[in-house]
């Protein structure tokens, strides 16, 4: 739990990287637009989380939501 203030550019980088990795993981099952929306929504829901923990938590939450989406599709 190391401290750093969240910066917009870091946030974007976290979102972009998560989108890239999750697109590669889910592209056979879900459309890229859906993946991008889920990641960005996850990022929004995690506002207030310390910046250093953000990339991991965003990706983890988005993956959980995408898996749920995939199952219900």
């Amino acid at each position, binding site marked *: *739990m*190391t*401290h750093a203030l969240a910066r917009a550019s870091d946030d974007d980088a976290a979102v972009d990287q998560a989108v890239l990795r999750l697109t590669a993981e889910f592209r056979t099952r879900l459309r890229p637009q859906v993946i991008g929306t889920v990641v960005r929504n996850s990022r929004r*829901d*995690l506002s*207030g*989380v*310390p910046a250093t*923990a953000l990339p991991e*938590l965003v990706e*983890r*939450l988005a993956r*959980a*939501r995408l898996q*749920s989406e995939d199952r219900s599709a």
Partner: protein
Amino acid sequence: MGYIDVSGIRHTLSDGRVLLSDVSFRVGDGARAALVGENGAGKTTLLRIIAGDLVPEDGAVARTGGLGVMRQFIGSVRDDTTVQRFLVDLSPPAVRSAWDAVQAAELALMEADDEPTQMAYATALAHWGDVGGYDAEVTWDTVTVAALGVAYDGCKYRELSTLSGGEQKRLALEALLRGPDEVLLLDEPDNYLDVPGKRWLEERLLETRKTVLFVSHDRELLNRVADRVVTVEGGSAWVHGGGFPSYSEARSSRHERLAEVRRRWEEEHQRLVDLVRTMQQQAANSPDMANRYHAMQTRLAKFEAAGPPPEPPPPQQVAMRLRGGRTGVRAVTVEGLELTGLMKPFGAEIFYGDRVGVLGANGAGKSHFLRLLAGQHVAHTGEWRLGARVVPGLFAQTHAHPEWLDRTPVDLLWHGEPGRPGVDRGRAMAALRRYGLADSGDQLFRTLSGGQQARFQVLMLELSGATLLLLDEPTDNLDVLSAESLEEALAAFDGTVLAVTHDRWFARSFDRFLVFGADGRVYESAEPVFDETRVVRAR
């Protein structure tokens, strides 16, 4: 900014005894107040009440500013507490609960990786940031570097039990002094610290702007640091607004004043009682006097209802009578003595009546030297001998008497030992009473407090007829008043005294010093030397 305001506190022990009654005092913003009193007077109980650990039967404690508490057991932690947990526990309540929530959320995440659990973890982390958890971690890093020379990440999972008592104390003090709490309660912060450590503590307490209430038996530390002294005695507390140097005089004056006020109250009471009796007789003979008689009765009733002023506390129950006796001029002669593996050969002559402080590095062989002179088996080369009529008596650190642990003081006195005849129960109790131990005569030695064990050991010395006292850290567990009593007894002792001590105040009463250096050299000094560092040996 922080203060402590204690008002009308009353606390009763489980056996029904009133330990504290109507205790009131205030420690103002930025004050460094010492809390002193005899062993068992209620200092730690009072600190626990102020800390909120105990609820008083009556009265209240008010304070502003966060409260940081260093408890007495720190220094002797032997369980599996880690450095991280220890630092968390010393943090403000908000940081503690946020840390616990993060830990719980992490554990839950190991069990289930679903969305609610992830959101709970994210919330816990956000809360950790909001309450200053990240700032606390930066502080902990500074603390561990200062106390242990290691970054926080490098030692946070280390068990506290692997640290020495001094390191544990230092870690807690660094955390509290650098932390956000503005009011600190420190219960014996100097225990386990060596003299350089105590000097460091003094400097830090002098420079801090926090409000500090601390318990200590170290008179040098009290003398340097305390700007007021709160005394717990006779079940109540009073404050001396000056520092420790004028404390003893202030305490005597207070006791005299209390005794005088009490004496006047009793005289006035007696006068009123006599008047009522006289008027009762007059009223029987003259109806005119009946009204005056009733008025006087009312006056006496009001006087008694207001109650007497407090009595001065009973004089301290410790009266040590170390007698000793005349011995040969050369009490101890040492020639080319070397305790195997501990020091380089040294020589010394100690004369009848000398008061010799044995100082120096931890692990340099000081205690072994005393044990050798006491006649115990200690591997050595070289010569040593005692003079004519020299009878050694050893005061060892309390854990050095395993054979006493399951026996009572009365039993130990009854049976005697070689060189010390046994005494009957009456004489044993009389002797125990002089040492403030009458109530503990039938308690197992292991259940006595450190101060009581120490006083009992001095009593054993008294009864042994020793003419050479070999004292190993005798003031370590003694409260201030008992330590002064021991000093008085030693001053009156007709014989020779060798004492190992780290107590700078006590050391001032000695006139020669034998210093055991960290390099193995043993040398004599006219002044006390406390700068020798710990002996480093290959382990």
